[in-house]
């Protein structure tokens, strides 16, 4: 909805002063101060709950607790600086094997669940886009899986996947879903997809609903069939929405914790994700390696996000919207300037405006 919901250009310029049109580049000092005042509490809290933990995690990951008996025979925990040893251990030995396994699990779950969710979500959206009667009822029911707390959905699926539960009963099988092994991986994937595919469906549906009907009409007149319309109109036009939805789902899947934790349990090799591994380590009071795992997960998430935004151009922050807006404002200002100033001043006003447009663009 980028272009349609953009506020009028005046929104960006503040109070217009009669006779002398205000230029966009000019910011009153009061406005900047007010913005700083309004934003500082938020930024302060975020610094406390995001930046501090991140720095602290990096710091802690350089230390290791050596517990041993001290001279008097008491257990003592001494933290010693070990440099990058915690990171080196990520790739060798027992803890390395566990890390790589968790890394592989996290990646596997992210790829499979997001892929299935996207396909299923698209199908859901296509079906819902066609339904006219009972659409609100449908929308309410599709929100149910989204609203169920992940921990509860873990419990719910554990009950369904019991060895003598309903899943085995319907399938006529005797699969041990919630024990170790590939079946438990499948159980996690099914439960995760159930909960999140409707979310993608909703987002994609919203993207589909803003496609004007005339586009389809024109395509039909040109003889495009349903598949052709899907491939040439619907998919390209929902792509921006879909990209953002997929990005968010991926970042969410990368930090998956609740579902495998409740559905299968902690410390199970076949479903242990990086979050679970880091949690388990910190539970064992091995903060050094726990922090190293957490930092690695953070880097993984950051890399995926950056690649996604840079390569696929997912417009997450609405940065494109802001740019578009500033362009519009600049143009409007130039016209206003031209009208208000004398012909002699026109050239200079135009010049300064285009300068501001330039600085705006570089910012």
């Amino acid at each position, binding site marked *: *909805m980028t272009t349609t919901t953009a506020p009028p250009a005046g929104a960006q310029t503040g109070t217009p002063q009669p006779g002398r049109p205000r230029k966009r580049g000019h910011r009153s000092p009061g406005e*900047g101060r007010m913005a700083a005042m309004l*934003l500082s509490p*938020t930024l302060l809290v975020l610094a406390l709950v995001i930046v501090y933990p991140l720095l602290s995690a990096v710091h802690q990951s350089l230390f290791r607790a050596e517990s041993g008996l001290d001279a008097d025979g008491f257990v003592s925990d001494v933290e010693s600086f070990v440099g990058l040893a915690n990171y080196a251990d990520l790739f060798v030995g027992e803890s390395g094997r566990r890390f790589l396994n968790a890394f592989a699990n996290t990646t596997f779950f992210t790829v499979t669940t997001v892929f299935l969710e996207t396909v299923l979500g698209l199908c859901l959206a296509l079906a819902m886009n066609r339904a006219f009667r009972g659409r609100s009822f449908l929308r309410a029911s599709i929100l149910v899986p989204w*609203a169920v707390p992940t921990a509860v959905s873990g419990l719910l699926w554990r009950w369904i996947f019991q060895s003598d539960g309903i899943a085995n009963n319907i399938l006529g099988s005797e699969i041990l879903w919630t024990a170790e092994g590939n079946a438990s991986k499948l159980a996690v994937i099914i439960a995760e997809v159930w909960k999140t595919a409707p979310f993608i469906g909703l*987002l994609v549906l919203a993207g589909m609903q803003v496609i004007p009907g005339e586009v389809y009409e024109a395509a*039909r007149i040109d003889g495009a069939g349903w598949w052709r319309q899907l491939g040439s109109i619907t998919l390209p036009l929902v792509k921006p929405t879909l990209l953002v939805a997929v990005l968010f789902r991926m970042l969410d899947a990368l930090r998956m914790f609740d579902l495998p934790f409740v559905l299968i349990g902690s410390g199970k090799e076949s479903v242990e994700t990086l979050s679970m591994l880091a949690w388990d380590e910190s539970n064992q009071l091995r903060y050094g390696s726990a922090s190293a795992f957490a930092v690695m997960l953070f880097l993984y998430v950051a890399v995926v996000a950056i690649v996604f935004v840079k390569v696929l151009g997912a417009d997450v922050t609405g940065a494109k919207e802001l740019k578009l807006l500033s362009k519009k404002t600049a143009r409007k200002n130039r016209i206003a300037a031209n009208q208000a100033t004398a012909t002699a001043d026109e050239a200079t006003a135009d010049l300064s405006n285009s300068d501001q447009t330039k600085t705006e663009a570089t910012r």
Partner: protein
Amino acid sequence: MTISDLRNAAADSGAVAGSSNGTAPPSTRPKAKRTWRSYSVYAGLALIFAYCLAPFYWMLVSSLRRTADIFDNTLLPAPFSLENYAKVFDGSTMFGQALLNSLIVAGTTTTFALVLGVFAAYAISRLNFRFKSVILGVIIATSMFPGISVVVPLLRLFTDIGWINTYQAMIVPNLSFAIPLAVWNLTTFMKALPFDLEEAAMIDGCTKWQAFRRVLLPLAAPGVFTTAILTFIHSWNEFIIALSMINDPKIQTATVAISKFTGATEFQAPFGEQMAAGVIVTVPLVIMVLIFQRRIVEGLTAGASK
């Protein structure tokens, strides 16, 4: 143009497109094919209903069985029983307390996030200042931060300052996801509101602050409300922070409490009670979803499909 305007416009145009889209013009297609198509659409819808609701329904049904016939596979509880619900609240599990804790934690988190979020969103959507898109980008980026990367260091810190087993040990870390969510949603809503009214108020002599308080805030109320619902649901469903920071059953939240429901032995998990507790935790959310579905969908999609 507000989002709901857009939605209506879209629904209108969608209706036009769809009515001729799903079922082709009568003159060109035989009638049999048309009814077959509409049947297939309804079959698809039924499938979606089943997909979304069947697991939840199974939880509900199982919670209404007696312990003795918990492994029945009938679609309705044969002897209907509230036994499991009675057990959940009989005091041994402190589940009522856990629900109250969830309410306190989620409510406080939501309040803080909204208050901070409204100011931040106003600054981003209405004021002109440097580094605006950078700040918005940073705030949104923080919402992608993995929870465990907050939990591990803060666990250490909170242990040192004696915050373990306190409400603030959950509320403060919860803000790490609640604030970005609130700021982002509110910014989207405020950007969509026309500036003209505030401008008129300011021409009439209001200060910026007065225009914000008397004009923008009432207009943004629906957006604030939607954001409140979303933030509340997210905080209510939060798990990893509550699990890590709390080990006292008196303080733990409902989601953690039900994950820890255990029976006498490992092989005798009290599934009936777990299902009943799950239903109790979920039902407030489902009711909220039913009442506010339009707003929730609006809020969820406003962020992604700008």
